[in-house]
């Protein structure tokens, strides 16, 4: 029983990180109808921003840790908005495929610029937050796991509030629903899209920092696998749907952890992705997504 609970905890804390990254994919898709593959690169830059900021603040303090987290989020929000301005805005109105290929290009650009700037050697991420372990029967809970789950939860609630309770959130939903109609009623589409990229990139940075706190070895290609998993999580939950991304991330993380702890550990990705295929066979729009017929 304690093994089951321990695995559940491991799975949920891994899934919470997938969920944070998945939110970025899903928001951009919701507004622009394209998959921003550069997202995993932003995730990596977030972790490296944390690595350098972590050297400037005292190690192992809550205040210092929050400064690093917020600093990295701001830096990546700026990066996300810059990418949107330079790479995607000139392609507005072009076929989706062009934007998609550009996104893959930006992703590779970030990864290999990272190799050039940071070097390909893995770095050890500093302990920016204080750490402790709590024992509950046979269950060991680390403060890092609680931190991941807590921070993810707070950020998701904040995001939900921004999207449904603020003016800019209303504008985002308007652009998602119909960009032309939104422009007609006075929404500045460019500003809204830029904001969406900033918000999604800040979440990716938070994901990068939380990932690095739990697995303190970072390198420029660290974003590839988590990025892919988060993309799958976003599809699984129903792309374009915020609670769906969170659900998809948690589900994927938990399934993966349970498979990894069994005798089939080498098949964990195959089994996790197999489940995805089965779910999509029965619910093509994802768990919480609504199936919409594309108008031609």
């Amino acid at each position, binding site marked *: 029983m*304690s*093994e089951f609970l*321990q*695995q559940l905890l*491991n*799975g949920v804390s*891994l899934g919470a990180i997938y969920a944070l990254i998945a939110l970025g994919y899903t928001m951009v898709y919701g507004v622009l109808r394209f998959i921003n593959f550069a997202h995993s690169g932003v995730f990596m830059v977030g972790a490296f921003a944390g690595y350098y900021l972590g050297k400037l603040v005292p190690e192992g303090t809550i205040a210092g840790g929050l400064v690093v987290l917020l600093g990295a989020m701001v830096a990546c929000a700026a990066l996300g908005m810059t990418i949107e301005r330079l790479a995607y805005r000139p392609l507005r109105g072009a076929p989706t495929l062009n934007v998609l290929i550009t996104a893959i290009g930006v992703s590779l650009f970030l990864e290999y610029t990272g*190799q050039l700037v940071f*070097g*390909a*050697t*893995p770095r*050890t991420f500093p302990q920016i937050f204080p750490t402790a*372990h709590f*024992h509950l029967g046979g269950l*060991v809970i*680390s403060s890092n796991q609680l931190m991941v789950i807590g921070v993810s939860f707070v950020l998701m609630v904040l995001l939900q509030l921004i999207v449904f309770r603020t003016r800019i959130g209303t504008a985002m939903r308007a652009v998602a629903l119909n960009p032309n109609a939104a422009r007609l009623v006075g929404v500045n589409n460019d500003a809204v899209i830029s904001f969406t990229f900033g918000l999604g990139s800040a979440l990716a940075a938070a994901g990068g920092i939380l*990932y690095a706190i*739990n*697995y*303190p*070895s970072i*390198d420029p290609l*660290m974003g590839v*696998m988590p990025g892919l998993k988060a993309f799958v999580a976003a599809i699984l939950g129903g792309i374009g749907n915020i609670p769906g991304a969170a659900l998809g991330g948690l589900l994927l993380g938990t399934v*993966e*952890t*349970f*498979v*990894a*702890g*069994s005798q089939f*550990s*080498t098949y*964990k990705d195959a089994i996790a992705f197999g489940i995805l295929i089965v779910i999509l066979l029965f619910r093509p729009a994802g768990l919480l997504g609504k199936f919409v017929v594309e108008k031609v």
Partner: protein
Amino acid sequence: MSLRSSFFGLCAALLAVGTVLVPPARAADSRTPVRIGAYASLTGSEATWGQSYERGVRLAIEDVNAAGGVLGRPLELVIEDNRSKSGDSSTVVRKLIVRDKVVAVLGEVSSGRSLEAAPICQQMRVPMISNGSNPKVTEVGDYIFRVAYIDPFQGAVMARFAREHLKVGRIAVLTDATNAYAVGLGRFFKERFIADGGVVALEQRYSSSERDFKAQLTAIRAAGVDALFVPGYYTEVGLIVSQARELGFTGPVLGGDGWASPQLIELAGNNLKDTYYCDNFSVESEEPETRRFIARFRARYQEDPDSIAPLAYDAVGLLADALRRAGTTDRVKLRSALAATSGLAGVSGTITIDAQRNPQKPAYIVGFKDGRYRLVTTIAP
């Protein structure tokens, strides 16, 4: 001019330029250096190994040249980086052989990457000296040699150490399923451990790019074992040991020479308490040749050598010795001379090449104490 004929025209022109640029084979005069190729992971995930390997090779070449070189000619090194990636080694080794025309190839520290380059060296009849410990490396063919001990020996040594020294009854094995070295070492360890009366309670696997091992470790913790054997590389081992300690696993953790890197200590720190691994070299060894090397290394690089640099140094020593005995840079004669190496005093022990082109040498078991790994015991072959 049709496209086709312009293509042939271009080819002919290139061919003509090539003929002019490539000088005809010169008779070896005393100024022509003997070119040695090396490939290593100078960047990427196992960069600490590649960089250390380069230091060892360069130091050895400086020493050989200071002593007058070989055959009256100096040695010259051409080193290539494979970025710790699979696929790159075959490309750079082909370049070393075809373009740089090296007499022999040194590398790699990793068995997996050695296995990529070995078939090329074998096919082109260029002697290669590897550091990889997986037996398959030298099985590729008669041009492939090595300076490290092999995994069956290493696995047996660690199994014996676990049974006799640590009195371990039940053990779990956590293997990197994507790494030829780890899979081989895990198997050899298991066979010997069971033969010695121990129980392998659980086997778990991971793949090398992963960062989360808590799922496997939770299953291992639930299996109630005395110790854990992790035959992987330091990049993952550092995270595995930290996560195991975090989950409350307090038993000893053991491994092989894949652990040998200062970055392991940086990653896992004091979580490494009660961990042991088997290595090719120890700075605490009292052999005169080893002491001389350590003094030389400290003077040159202002720090203690790890276990990679001494093997790289010995690889150059092995090659220089064979070149002297062969009396020529002819690769066929060089190969025969390498195969006949016997009782050569190396810095990581005395080297005799056996019929399978492997050296016979002792293993050093080190344990973590006071912030660094210290010699626990030496086991002879």
